[in-house]
């Protein structure tokens, strides 16, 4: 009896191949996303006009660099105007940009003294580059965001200020400069489907990140179970004897005897498919999880977006703060998710990809609960903020 299927060894190779090949192939343009971006632009304008400093800053960035995909042409005066509106509301980044505008005469008459006052205000709010300029260590050759180069906004937005609201990092990533590439929705969907199906075909088992993590954590148990399976496979006669003895102990010989005398149709041993806990060895799960990280890295590098940063994102920081507190909250949340996924028998990948594709009712309900609660929490947090 061969309980460990040899095809399991195919999966690591398959997943590595998929990880390396898929991201570059899937990068492309998407008209529907461009449409979404247009809608996003309308939202920013509307929000900026109602006095939202973050929206004003974002809009100013768009005018400063020009965003072809959104039909926003470069307009230094408009950029300065919006930067100024945000700056007077105490927006540190905007204050820095106003300082830059005055220093280099971008959209406003050059005035280094006025520029210095704006740098001082920004520095007082903790803006690191403004502090460097004030202290005399700043890079005077830095091209401001309101300049001709569109490269600065992305760099700037990666450094979120405390309490700042900077969703432009997302928008800028898909619209500005070399980052005007992204995963097409259809390619991403197709790749996920391919991954799910290929995992099933190669392993005869469903895909799930939390389950894989669970298996990885308990790799010692996995090894012991594999040994037990191998021992049973090797000692068939002894195994049958042991099971027979256990059956007699549990039910009594009379019941076993009745089974032997009844002409029931026992399935042929050849027909029966023996499942195996270890048919997907823990090393395959390790490969899968490692490749999710490598896949993300490959996608970021091929898209030209790769950068190391320790910010959890401006949206996250807007709600949960930054620094140690935010990391504690993140780890706590992750731990709770871990408990939840094990209680629910899987996470969004297991239920969402594997379960829903098999029309499992529990998975459909589970996935609905995942996304439904996420949407509800988003609204609640937004209302509380």
């Amino acid at each position: 009896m061969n309980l460990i299927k040899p095809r399991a060894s195919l999966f690591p190779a398959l997943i590595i191949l998929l990880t390396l090949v898929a991201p570059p192939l899937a990068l492309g343009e998407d008209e529907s996303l461009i449409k979404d971006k247009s809608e996003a632009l309308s939202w920013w304008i509307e929000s900026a006009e109602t006095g939202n400093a973050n929206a004003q800053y974002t809009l100013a960035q768009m005018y400063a660099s020009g965003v072809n995909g959104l039909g926003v042409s470069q307009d230094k005066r408009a950029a300065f105007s919006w930067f100024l509106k945000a700056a007077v509301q105490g927006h540190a980044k905007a204050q820095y940009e106003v300082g830059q505008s005055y220093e280099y005469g971008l959209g406003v008459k050059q005035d280094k003294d006025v520029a210095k006052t704006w740098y001082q205000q920004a520095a007082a709010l903790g803006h690191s580059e403004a502090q460097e300029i004030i202290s005399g260590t700043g890079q005077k050759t830095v091209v401001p965001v309101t300049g001709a180069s569109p490269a600065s906004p992305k760099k700037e937005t990666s450094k979120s200020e405390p309490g700042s609201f900077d969703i432009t990092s997302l928008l800028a990533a898909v619209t500005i400069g070399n980052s005007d590439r992204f995963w097409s929705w259809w390619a991403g969907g197709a790749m996920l489907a391919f991954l799910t199906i290929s995992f099933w075909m190669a392993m005869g088992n469903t895909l799930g990140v939390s389950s894989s993590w669970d298996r990885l954590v308990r790799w010692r148990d996995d090894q012991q179970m594999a040994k037990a399976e191998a021992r049973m496979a090797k000692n068939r006669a002894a195994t049958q004897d042991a099971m027979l003895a256990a059956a007699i102990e549990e039910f009594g010989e009379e019941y076993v005897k009745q089974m032997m005398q009844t002409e029931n149709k026992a399935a042929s041993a050849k027909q029966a498919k023996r499942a195996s806990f270890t048919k997907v060895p823990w090393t395959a799960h390790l490969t899968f999880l490692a490749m999710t990280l490598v896949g993300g890295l490959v996608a970021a590098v091929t898209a030209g977006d790769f950068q190391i940063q320790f910010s959890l994102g401006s949206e996250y920081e807007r709600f949960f703060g930054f620094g140690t507190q935010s990391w504690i909250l993140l780890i706590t949340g992750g731990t709770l998710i871990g408990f939840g996924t094990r209680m629910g028998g899987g996470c969004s990948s297991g239920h969402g990809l594997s379960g829903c594709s098999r029309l499992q009712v529990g998975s459909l309900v589970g996935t609905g609960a995942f996304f439904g609660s996420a949407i509800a929490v988003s609204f609640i947090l937004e209302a509380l903020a």
Partner: protein
Amino acid sequence: MDSCELFPELTTNSALKVWQTFYCSGDFKKCVRFQQSTKGQAVPITLLPNGKDLDTAYLSDKIKRSAAQTAAAPASQEKPQASTPATNNTATTAAASPAINSASVSATSSYYVRFKANGAGEELQQKAKTIIEQLGIKVDGQLQQPVGEGYKWFIFITDQASGVDIYRAALRIEELGGIEGQVKCISLEPRS
């Protein structure tokens, strides 16, 4: 049951189908394997539905010893409740409890052992005979009986043997494959 590693084992062997009757097809919620899997826990293949762990080597020895003690065993025993098997949800090692002696009586008897295979099953018959004899059971006679559609009954009449050894033989014969249905074993000297 699709993901249960033990389920095929319990359904392909006639002597072990009693597990299926009481747990898989019966009150499956009492199956500790089922309970453990629904909690998202790994289910070792050695875990039996009643929560006991299969100690292969130890039980194998016990069965052999039991077979040697069969003649002295009493014939009567009490049947467990059909709807509620004697479930022990506490995972214990079966080897730690008297696996055979307390439950098995295994009085000796001559046995009628029969299985169906296609007409070219002589080799299978020879292998089956070898299995029976290897378990220390003397074969008094063997015959073949055509049943149509190219199939035959292959029948053995044994000398005195314990029920446990006969069941062991049946399990091994079924493991050979090529058998249609199950191996049927009938005691020719029913207990009073």
